[in-house]
């Protein structure tokens, strides 16, 4: 049934309290637990990809190393920094919401979105480069025999390098999709925050969106070394 059936007594407590909860505490705790469980499903979702990555990396280590070295470590590191900073702005936003400081909340939310868009922009540059270098798996894929610092050719089968790039696109693509969803989510919440929907008593959506953002950050924290930092030494 809809919320309109909630009794007057309960609505008086907090307009955001939904009919089937006894009090705000119960509602907030439920939302938080629900969010955490959702994050666990996200971990397992990416887990399938991590599993595939782990196994092929063990099988085709040299090819994965050689393919990894074509990635731009500067862009990757820059994006890592961007995401970490965005995580800081997210905690600031949550803190502002906790203090009921609407202006700060909106400011930090906007900042987070901008950082998220920066990340996606850099990702787009990287993807574009892959297209130019024919590193996108498919009929046009090409991977020239790489050489190490001594000019010695590294034994690499293009198929295995292609596998690396397949996983690279699958993992970063899935991650980027989550970033896009995150940016969308934050945009909606920013508008609602601006309208004053969230108060010091009720800001669960901000908190949960923050949790989501942090998880996406954590996934990148693992993706960065796994994809960009394989045998960088010579």
């Amino acid at each position, binding site marked *: 049934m809809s919320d309109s059936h909630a009794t007057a007594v309960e609505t008086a407590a907090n307009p955001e309290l939904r009919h089937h909860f006894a009090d705000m505490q119960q509602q907030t705790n439920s939302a938080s637990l629900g969010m955490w469980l959702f994050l666990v499903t996200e971990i397992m979702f990416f887990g399938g990809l991590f599993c595939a990555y782990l196994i092929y990396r063990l099988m085709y280590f040299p090819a994965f190393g050689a393919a990894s070295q074509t990635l731009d470590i500067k862009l990757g590191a820059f994006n890592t920094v961007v995401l970490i900073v965005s995580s800081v702005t997210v905690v600031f936003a949550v803190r502002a919401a906790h203090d009921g400081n609407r202006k700060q909340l909106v400011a930090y939310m906007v900042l987070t979105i901008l950082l998220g868009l920066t990340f996606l922009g850099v990702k787009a540059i990287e993807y574009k480069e892959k297209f130019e270098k024919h590193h996108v798996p498919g009929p046009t894929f090409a991977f020239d025999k790489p050489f190490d610092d001594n000019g*010695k050719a590294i034994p690499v*089968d293009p198929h*295995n390098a292609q596998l690396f790039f397949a996983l690279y696109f699958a993992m970063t693509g899935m991650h980027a999709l989550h970033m896009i969803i995150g940016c969308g989510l934050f945009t909606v919440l920013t508008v609602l925050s601006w309208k004053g929907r969230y108060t010091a008593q009720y800001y669960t959506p901000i908190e949960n969106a923050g949790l989501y953002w942090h998880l996406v950050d954590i996934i990148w924290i693992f993706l960065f070394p796994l994809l960009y930092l394989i045998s960088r030494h010579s």
Partner: protein
Amino acid sequence: MSKYFPLWPDRASTIAGQVDGLYIYLVLVSAVMTLLIFIAVAVLAVKYRRRPGVLPTPIEGSPILETAWSVIPFGVMLTFFIWGAVIFFKERTPPTNSTEVYVVAKQWMWKIEHMEGQREINELHVPVGENVKLIMTSQDVIHSFYIPAFRLKQDVIPGRYTTLWFKATEAGVYHLFCAEYCGTSHSGMIGNIVVMEPQDYTQWMAGGPSVPLPEAGKQLFTSLGCSTCHRFDIQGRGPNLQGAFGKPVLLEDGRTVMVDDNYVRESILNPNAKIVKGFTPVMPTFQGLVSDEQLNALVAYVKSLGQPAAGGAQNQAAAAPAGQPQKQVQ
């Protein structure tokens, strides 16, 4: 067993009896367990059926009983595990003196190549009392080589070899099924395993012209140009394959691999995957240039180069130094 109401499959391999033994043990244990539960439920349900004025007795539970019926069944199950594992270990450990037969599966047929060169489709002739090892691969999807009378089954996977070995005990014709769903004619991908007495088998083997598989492989080895780099006289650009098979080899990246069917196969199709220490990755891939049958021939040839002289009667040909005429087996 009745022809139209079979209750038990034919038993025609050394392992079949062992599987049956375990099966009978499990059937008996299960039957006893099932009967116990059925009788307990029936007796208790009738004895304690609801009657007016008779109240049930509340019982909380009994840690002792509960422990007993956790631990005892587990103990029984451990016997299932150990017995099953022992049989499985035997099934997965081919004896070293096995006759080797190559099997290529494709939608929807089985192609068989004997070492001696005989080829068959959907039919495999084997002698009674000899260890036979099948080295199998698929050209397309996953298939499964299943011989109910031998109680044996092994999936056949594209891109690598899987093996299956048996020792037939009874002459006769037995079903060969594809047991892994593989598309339209999955149920048509069936054939016969013809188990023959040794003398019949020798006769069958002698019929028809054929080039032994290693010999075919040797010809390919020359015609594909392998021999220009993989030389036997001096160190070529590729490793000397004489005596390489069946031994571990050190790789460029520090790992060690066993030179087995799968490694030789991989090295032909994907030469750069595992480079032997001291060599450079100059070999081109033969992916798409050689068929699975040709691959089998090449692998059989490389294997024949590596066999020590004592390696089983039927592989004597393999023991001959490379470049010399191969002797016809048996």
